[in-house]
């Protein structure tokens, strides 16, 4: 039985290498003066593919860690646990922050990020959520906007 983590990561990185190779060969490789802009990325991409194949190959010889040997039911449960973990919420909220910041402005977007994390992901009480949420937003506003002069977006509402 192959080491699934090594196999899947190696295979994924092989595809990444393949993609880099595809885009590298569109650039010129060599000119009269010497190497051109496509050669270095191509060598790197081929190296990624080569070493990822070694990782995939080695995954068949490296024993699967005991803790990972689970039944299909156990694996299914593990996926559900992973989806329930705060990671997904963190990723989604940062993504939303990146998409909304320009339109909604710093203060509103920061509130959209901080309050759900504190209240629903980290399960803090409303009192702590409001205290820490407002405290950190105001502190970072003073630090970045007032003290460091960072031009954070005001958004369509027109406030920071």
């Amino acid at each position, binding site marked *: 039985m192959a080491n699934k983590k090594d196999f899947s990561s190696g295979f994924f990185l092989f595809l990444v290498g393949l993609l880099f190779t595809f885009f590298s060969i569109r650039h010129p490789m060599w000119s009269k003066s010497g190497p051109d802009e496509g050669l270095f990325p191509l060598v790197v991409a081929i190296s990624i593919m080569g*070493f990822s194949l070694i990782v995939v190959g080695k995954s068949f010889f490296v024993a699967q860690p005991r803790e990972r040997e689970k039944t299909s039911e156990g694996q299914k449960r593990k996926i559900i646990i992973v989806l329930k973990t705060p990671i997904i919420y963190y990723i989604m909220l940062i993504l939303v922050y990146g998409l909304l910041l320009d339109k909604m402005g710093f203060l509103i977007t920061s509130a959209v*990020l*901080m309050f759900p994390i504190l209240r629903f992901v980290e399960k803090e009480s409303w009192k702590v959520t409001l205290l820490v949420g407002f405290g950190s937003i105001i502190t970072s506003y003073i630090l970045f906007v007032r003290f460091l002069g960072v031009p954070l977006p005001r958004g369509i509402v027109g406030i920071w």
Partner: protein
Amino acid sequence: MIESLLIGFTISLSFQNIIYCFIGCSLGTIIGVLPGLGPSATIAILLTLTYKLDLTSSIIMLAGIYYGAQYGGTITSVLLNIPGEASTVVTCIDGYQMALKGRAGKALGISVFGSFIAGTFGTIGLSLLAPPLSELALKFGPAEYSTLMLLGLTLVIYLGSGPPTKAILICFLGIAVATIGMDPLTAIERFTFGSQSLLEGVDVAVMIMGLFGIGEILCMAASRELRGVRDVIKYSSKLRELLPDLQDWKTSIMPIGRGSLLGFLVGIIPGGGGVLSSFASYAMEKRVSKHPEQFGKGAIEGVAGPESANNSAVSGAFIPLLTLGIPTNPVMALMLAGFMLHGVTPGPFIIKEHPGVFWGVITSMYVGNVILFILNLPMIRFFVKIVEIPFALLSPLIVLICVIGAYSINNNTLDILIMLIFGVMGFLMRNFSYDPAPFVLGFILGRMIEKSVRQALIISQGSPLCFFTSPISMVFIVTTLFVLLSPIFTAFWKRHRLSMVS
């Protein structure tokens, strides 16, 4: 040189720089106390805050974070058996055992003294060695730089944690990401897919903030174990009880001396740094000890040696950065980013072009060591309280600083999304057992290697012989080959010895 040091001291002892050094040392110690969040993540998060400071002040603050973290990591290693830093993992072995025997104060005390002595030793070594090395670096051309960086990457892979194949693979991935943006010689777009924001390439600070800052938060969010608070061993915070007695000094003075020297030398090597130096020091102390059986049961030498080594390594790691412009570990890569943010590239010319920065940073380490010494002895009790800050309150704050920091670099929301991608990558790397350090160094050195290799080939009109005709680059090539082939030789030698025995 004394004159230069005096100029440096006038800069580092200015009120403003003492304050920044103090902030850096305090932040570093606090971060070192917090398990999980390392100096790389902290420096990455705070890198954008140093934008408005002048270069010397910002590097002084960042350096303060680095060596403060080495001090802080010890506290949790000794009291909680949780290493605050990777470089203090080895301190847990005997430090925690000492704590269980009611000698926590002694363990912390000797580590503070050892760190102070080693830090001062390392800084003196840096002051003495950096100027002659930068003179030597002037003889380096593109071919010499290319082979040196190749050696650096090889050592990082060889000395890093995890299997070398994975380290090489992830290092190449870092180099591949570094090729995104304008070509360094012809300025032609590569892999930008028409995005104007990617023309300058992926920003180092954004990448590191994602990989270490957001990546660490995601890992900590996934790990329920780190979210709880553990019991703290009770100990006296009276200063007298923290001070090692005469017997402790007798036992520790030689380990401190050996650790200081070993740490400094290991720190200079690319891929070395605090982790390797502390483990090497522990192994050495156990080997030279008259009572090796006491190691692992609370031997004070097992704390004094590694603690000195990891602090001395910090100063050693600055030598290749300041003289050659080559970072030897992720923290040094961030320091390089800090220099670059202010438009200064460290290297052989930094002493001549920016003497104030060079000597100011070096002398600030003396100041930083004194600050840390004063800070750590009486305030250990306060720092221990920091461990009790719940992750639930800390993580949203770190995320907020990261997103604002990423945005403020180019005032572009795309950088937040790029940081998120690297954050997920960092999380996956840790979960799939890939060390992120080779990725970062591959990314940082990738651009430099490509530029140097192509410049060397253009100068030699396409002939690769240019790498073999220079004696300096030949030394680097031979060393690289030796490092690469050494596992094969070792395996062969072991097999040969086994067959001889049988």
